């Protein structure tokens, strides 16, 4: 038996161990990232859900200004804390649009009255169709969309206070 063959199992073991150690050291990211980052928004046209609040369509997001599109719901607990952070973003001049997923008008109005309303427009997505076409797998998620309607960044999970500078810089880059 040649020397190379005798040492092959040892070499193979070292290789496999290296990969296993790497995986233990860097736990897997189990988030499902949208395949649409860097690509234009899919076309959609969502109806209004709150009286007096305009509806949302993809055309209204390609206005030359960057937008933050927030996928949320009144029944989503992390959304309660997130909406307050969105308010500070709005105060810094960010255009925020909402997509309300599987929501009811009364519940949503109650949610906004209680927690604040940073949204310029809210579209209703009762069957999650638009959420799925955006490549979003849960609530809350947010998309930074540039002036041409191209998705520049996807935030999975709530935006918390420490994320504000990062989101602002993403919006700045999208300008």
């Amino acid at each position, binding site marked *: *038996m040649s*020397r190379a063959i*005798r*040492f092959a*199992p*040892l070499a193979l*073991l*070292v290789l*496999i*161990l290296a*990969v*296993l*150690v*790497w*995986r*233990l050291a860097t*736990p*897997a990211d*189990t988030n499902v990232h949208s395949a649409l980052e860097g690509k234009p928004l899919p076309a959609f046209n969502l109806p209004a859900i709150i009286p007096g609040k305009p509806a949302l369509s993809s055309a209204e997001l390609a206005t030359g200004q960057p937008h933050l599109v927030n996928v949320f719901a009144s029944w989503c607990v992390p959304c309660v804390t997130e909406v307050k952070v969105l308010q500070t973003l709005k105060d810094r001049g960010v255009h925020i649009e909402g997509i309300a997923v599987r929501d009811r008008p009364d519940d949503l109005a109650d949610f906004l009255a209680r927690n604040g309303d940073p949204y310029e427009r809210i579209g209703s997505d009762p069957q999650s169709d638009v959420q799925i076409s955006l490549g979003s797998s849960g609530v809350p998620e947010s998309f930074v969309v540039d002036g041409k309607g191209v998705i520049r960044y996807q935030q999975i999970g709530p935006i918390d206070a420490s994320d504000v500078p990062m989101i602002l810089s993403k919006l700045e880059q999208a300008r």
Partner: protein
Amino acid sequence: MIAEAGLSALWLAAGLALLQLVLMVVALRSGADVRRAMRSIAVVQGVLTLIAFAMLLIVFARSDMSVALVFENSASNKPFIYKVAGAWGNHEGSMLMWVTILAVAGAFVAMLAHRTSERTLVAALGAQAVLALGFYAFLLIASNPFARLWPAPPDGQGLNPLLQDPGLAFHPPTLYLGYVGLSVAFSFAVGALLTGEVDSRLARAMRPWVLGAWILLTLGITAGSYWAYYELGWGGYWFWDPVENASLMPWLAATALLHSTNVLAARGALKAWTMMLAVIAFSMSMVGTFLVRSGILTSVHAFAIDPQRGTFLLALLAIYVGAAFALFAWRGSSLKEGAPFELVSRESGLVVNNLILTVILGVVFVGTLYPLFVEAVSGEKLSVGAPYFNAVAGPLALLLAVLVGVGPLLAWRRQRRPVLHRLQVPALLGATALAITFILWRDMHILPRLGFTVGAYLAAASILPLVGRNPLRAPVATWGMVVAHFGISVALVGMAANAAFSSERLAIAKPGDVLSVGPWLVQLTDVVPTAGKNWTAVEAELRAAKGAQLVTLTPQSRYYPDPPTQTNESSIRTFWNGQLYTVIGNQDASGAWQLRLWWKPFVTLIWAGGALIAIGGALALIGRLWRLAWRRRPSGDAEWRKERYA
């Protein structure tokens, strides 16, 4: 005091393991005769771990809440069997059970191994001591099962309800016994590599352990497959889940080892290869444990996960397997090849068997870890599913099944007369099965079609070793081989029938609706709420009719509040020609219920085949131990050859 007694016994046992290791080094260096001391130490070590484990059982049985482990995993109002099973239904207790089985196995090796040379036995016991020391260190330093709580809490926190199942009380011990059997083969291989005495005596000492481990792993896989089939409610018997693969890989390696050990025992050939396989088989059981415990692959077994323990297991894996491979690399060249054999011979048949099994093992291993490698190299995420495994491993397994019919007909060293004419009847049966599938089912998929063909052929071919001689005078081990090989054909036909003829019906039904599935008409008569000790459920009442035959099935959708878990309890009715399998899902907005119905012709043959394979292994083991106990004689080699040529 009971817990302290257990802990003291464990410390003493660890000290003895260290002494065992030191004695081995001394003996190998100086040639001193330490065999008797070694034997006593190994036996006392086994007894001490048994005492420690018994103490743990006692504190669990008495619900002694001052022991932290009992408080965390038990409650005083639990049924007695789950109180006792709770002792190993957690990390610390299962580690103690593992070292106990390991040390008791070491004691048996020390008492029973008369066949190897003394030097090799001493070296093997030393290797076994190193294996045990790693686990003693982990138990005593990082996960003491006997740690106390002060003040003692009034009652415990209970056991995960998912684990309160009689099957799960026996699942870990079965698995551990199988893994420990492979660890003994590993220790023998390391010992023999150290002394350079790789010969047929070593193979005969290893064989009962390999066989025993293989039987338990076969049973474990068969039972696990049936559990997933009825409990998960997906109607499948194998999902290529990482944890299923983790159990399949040691089994594949053990199957190959079982056959190559026979070559080494009978002919003294395949030395290096058999040593390599012994190391790989144990490595695969460690890899399996690591994959399950560390949670680095997503799987249904997620309740056992702990990354830190994963790190520890990986470190042990690296030390043990790395050391064995390094030993192999440095000492492998000193192994002289044994008796030569010709191209057409029993030996070459078993070499082909080993090659195919090893390739299948590689296919499963690569498929299971491929997503990790791709992500490490390119950052891309992907998963490998059943289509890959079926397409690659399926044809290889079929090819192997064809050769299983030929191998046992070949003589050792050189097959003089042609054997193919003996396969006329089996080949004819296979061809008939193939023709029937073409006449009756033109659009059947290729794999089930070949499954029927090979299954029919092998059913006849596997019996041939008993034909042309008086079957009652054939050795028990030969009977074992025949039964196990026949079991393969039974399982093959079951898999082919399940793949080709299963009918599935997914429907939304209201009470009163009638659905058809296969030859059955099934009526949903009612859906009623029901409750058990710690769950509530909705239960469907289904009346199934085929001709004059009428049966009732009651699948449930259960909800366990603590922790909130929803499970589907399938309702299955077994007939001689298949199973009717029913599951109830959720209610939709209109008040109708989701129903899933399957008619699975001959699906039970899959597990019957698995059971036959294990029974065959048990027969072979009994036969071997019988010979060992009653007909111990130095001329065993000649006896063996005479019998094979008969």
